[in-house]
């Protein structure tokens, strides 16, 4: 087990280093932010001073090393626009994103598992067809279409804050999080329902289920304990990947609902080409994604010995 964890850890670190370097290269290729253009003339001495201030005068590999060194100390630089420390912006945004991710995951696991189990147990019934059709539709419809429909029809109604947001009204976080979490949960719940239905159908044919029934256990116990536990593995994997993506910021959903998480931070930074914020958020997303998939893999190996030996 220790060897498995060590190997997975080294792998994660290498992937993070490679990915951050790619991000860094890609952003460097964006061009010189202090160059004169048609819209603005930058006096050469000021441009030079700014390049020096932001470290853009150093060779590329040095810039990368400096950047990684700074990141490890929690310093993501200051943004080009208003000269705020990027780490503060991240600190403000990350808790919102984490809340959104957790609420979304709870909603989608609840809906997905229940719907999947019902569909599998009552196979070919009305409920099965309903679950399958809704799941297919939900998976096919892009998240921002769902988001836009909800903003147009539901926001500003009942407990849901209106979009665009008014700056004068403070809304508690649990009201703020509802609609975006629900939007994110719809598609994931559909995937989970499908996975759960498929794996449940497989498990229900297994010998140990027949044994459990044969020894006279109640149907409730057979389904709830024996069948459900054994059909959760693909769901757990899916939730792991999904959590990784969500912790990195749901860019589209957060932007549609103007929800102050890292995704919305990123989309605003994109609009005004604010490179330090873009790099910081992208690095954050990648690191969150890689670390969470690593943790899920390790948990998984813990649960299923075949994986760590293989």
């Amino acid at each position, binding site marked *: 087990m220790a060897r498995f964890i060590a190997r997975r850890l080294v*792998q994660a670190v*290498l*992937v*993070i280093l*490679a*990915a951050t370097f*790619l*991000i860094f*290269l*890609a*952003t460097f*290729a*964006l061009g010189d932010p202090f160059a004169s253009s048609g819209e603005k003339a930058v006096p050469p001495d000021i441009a030079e001073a700014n390049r020096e201030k932001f470290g853009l005068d150093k060779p590329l590999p040095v810039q990368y090393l400096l950047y990684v060194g700074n990141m490890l100390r929690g310093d993501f630089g200051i943004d080009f626009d208003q000269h705020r420390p990027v780490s503060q912006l991240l600190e403000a945004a990350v808790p919102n994103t984490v809340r959104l991710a957790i609420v979304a995951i709870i909603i989608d696991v609840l809906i997905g598992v229940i719907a999947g189990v019902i569909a599998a147990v009552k196979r070919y019934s009305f409920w099965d067809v309903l679950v399958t059709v809704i799941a*297919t*539709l939900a*998976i*096919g*419809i*892009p998240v*921002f*279409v769902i988001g*836009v*429909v909800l*903003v*147009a029809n539901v*926001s*500003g109604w009942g407990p849901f804050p*209106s*979009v665009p947001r008014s700056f004068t009204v403070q809304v508690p976080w649990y009201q703020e999080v509802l609609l975006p979490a629900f939007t994110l949960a719809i598609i994931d719940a559909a995937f989970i329902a499908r996975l759960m*239905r*498929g794996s449940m*159908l*497989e498990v229900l*044919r297994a010998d140990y289920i027949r044994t459990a029934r044969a020894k006279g256990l109640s149907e409730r116990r057979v389904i709830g304990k024996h069948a459900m536990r054994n059909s959760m593995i693909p769901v757990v994997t899916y939730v792991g990947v999904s959590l*990784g*993506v969500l912790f*990195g*910021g749901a*860019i*589209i959903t957060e*932007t*549609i609902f103007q929800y102050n998480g890292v995704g919305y931070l*990123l*989309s605003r930074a*994109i*609009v005004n080409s604010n490179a330090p914020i*873009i790099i910081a*958020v*992208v690095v954050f*997303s*990648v690191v969150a*994604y*890689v670390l969470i998939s690593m943790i899920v893999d390790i948990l998984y190996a813990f649960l299923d010995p075949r994986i760590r030996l293989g």
Partner: protein
Amino acid sequence: MTTPTSAGPPADADATGSALLLPGPDAAASGTTVPLGARGSGQFADIRRRFVRNRLAMVGLAIVTVLIVLAIIGPYVTPYNAFEQNLANTLQPPSADHWFGTDVLGRDLFSGIIYGCRLAILVGLLTVAFSLLIGLSLGAVAGFKGGAWDAVIARFIDIFLAFPPLVGAIVIVRAVGGGVTPVIVALVALGWMTTARLTRGQVLALREAEYVEAARSIGADNRRIVMRHVLPNAIAPVLVYAFTNIGVVIVAMASLSYLGIGVPPDVPEWGRLISQATPFLRVEGKSHLWLAPALAIAITTLGFAFVADGMRDSLDPKLRGGN
């Protein structure tokens, strides 16, 4: 009634598929003759029959066919130039003149949606074709050669998979520059890994097959073995995945344009149209602005998803959960 429509379109879909791929379904049929000689072409007839019987898949096929036709003939049938702005005639509700109304720049929304369809189909097909090419090649090399090749390719796959997809695309598009081509480059760069993994797994399993040994014993070289014997037998699940991916790619492009990345602002791309409609989301009587592009995207992705599901179920009925 379904038979004539169904006989044509699947052949079309196959033709587009095989044009992008080296061996194609015909080769697949001949490739399977050695181990599955008894079933041969009958296997394909079975697959087609299962597909045709799947109502949802046929609906999807109808949608996809209409979309492809629209994409081809689009510019010749649209009532207006999709780019032409008329600032004296903005935000009009749907009417006989403008079926879907006009947008914030006074452009005819119906023509814009048709243009967007052309763009979506073009980008979807090109991206998936290039991803297939890269994924199949790297996957086949990794699976067939093994050793250092496999290890290096696996690391590359890991690195590219480490990017949350949309985040990665944003980084790449911004690095390559604005426009449609950078969007395709970004989506290909982030779209080949699963194909490569799938192909690798398939090739790895088939490498030891008896007919591969037989081919080698009569002196076929690696290239011929991979192209004629291994890939044709490995390709079915890879093609299904690729088809599933067309919808994903179309949504990804729309998401990027929604965020203001890639496709230039004056192009009536679906995601862009939705983002331009955002200020009017809660305005009475302006819902056509977002409804038209939102429906267009939803119908398109659903169409491709239905066909992909049908393909998967008819290729391998077991995946459905058995009978």
